[in-house]
């Protein structure tokens, strides 16, 4: 009975991972989040470097390097997820970025730092870090983990073709 239950669970997990609608929905949500998050950072990399520096985890030089490259990684991953182009790489990088961001916020919270997240806007008075932000990030981490494990690769339009 144990084996039967296990194989039944494994089949359900397999069918969940191959569900094209869930896959498409998560790609759309996580992709749009990354695209929106990248816009302010690309427009003002200096302000984003200040936001990274506020976490006091990396040197100012590395903060500036991250502020130069990271917003473009976010934008390309976001577009990749939404369009289904370079989908596997986009999902893997999204997962890695979200894990790093979440750990950085956790470390800042444990040190008692009163700083803004720097996630969507670089305004220092908006989006202070907190447990709500950790919760939001964890949801996105689970979503992107699903995308990494999911075998379903479909382009932007193929999801609509399948429904016909």
């Amino acid at each position, binding site marked *: 009975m144990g084996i039967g239950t296990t194989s039944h669970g494994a089949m359900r997990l397999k069918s969940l991972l191959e569900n094209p609608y869930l896959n498409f929905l998560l790609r759309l949500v996580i992709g749009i989040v990354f695209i929106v998050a990248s816009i302010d950072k*690309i427009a*003002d*990399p*200096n302000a984003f*470097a200040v936001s990274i520096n*506020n976490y006091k985890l990396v040197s100012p030089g590395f903060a*500036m*390097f991250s*502020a*130069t*490259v*990271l*917003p*473009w*990684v976010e934008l*390309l*991953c976001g577009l*990749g997820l939404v369009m289904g182009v*370079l*989908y*596997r*790489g*986009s*999902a*893997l*990088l999204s997962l890695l970025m979200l894990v790093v961001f979440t750990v950085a916020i956790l470390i800042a919270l444990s*040190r*008692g*730092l*009163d*700083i803004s997240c720097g996630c969507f806007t670089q305004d*220092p*008075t908006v989006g202070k870090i907190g447990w709500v932000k950790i919760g939001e990030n964890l949801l996105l981490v689970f979503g992107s983990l699903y995308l*990494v494990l999911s*075998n379903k690769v479909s382009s932007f339009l193929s999801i609509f073709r399948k429904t016909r």
Partner: protein
Amino acid sequence: MKNLQPALRESILILTVSLVLGFLSTGVSGKGFFAPPPDTAQRNAPQFISLDEARLLHQSESAMFVDGRHAYDFGLGHIKDAINIPLSEFEVAAVLLGSIPKDKTLVTYCDGAECNSSIELAVKLDSLGFSNVRIFFGGWKEWESAQLPTEP
């Protein structure tokens, strides 16, 4: 795990393109690493001061202390004669500074080493044209533990 290799290959491609786009865009717009150095000759950029320097400025009554904490914390206790400009309400509260000469020495502070409000406040005051802004980074905690003048 059979997907890991193509995922890694695609990741490297995305990272490489991002690296190129990042440096190209900042190079063209003159931001990030390509930003011109700040003009320190004309502006007196905000500087950090120690507890002793803050105490001397307070004793001389030549400086105005600006508390960047929330109004609630300010109400519980603050450096004597300080004014409260919470960072989150800067635009509104900055009207308090309208009558103050731009060359007046302003000393910003917040809770202490765990907060950045004193630095962000100093940058905002500097951008308003105040030329003598100082940051007392030790803040309220250091001042209070040294038993220097407070109110209420």
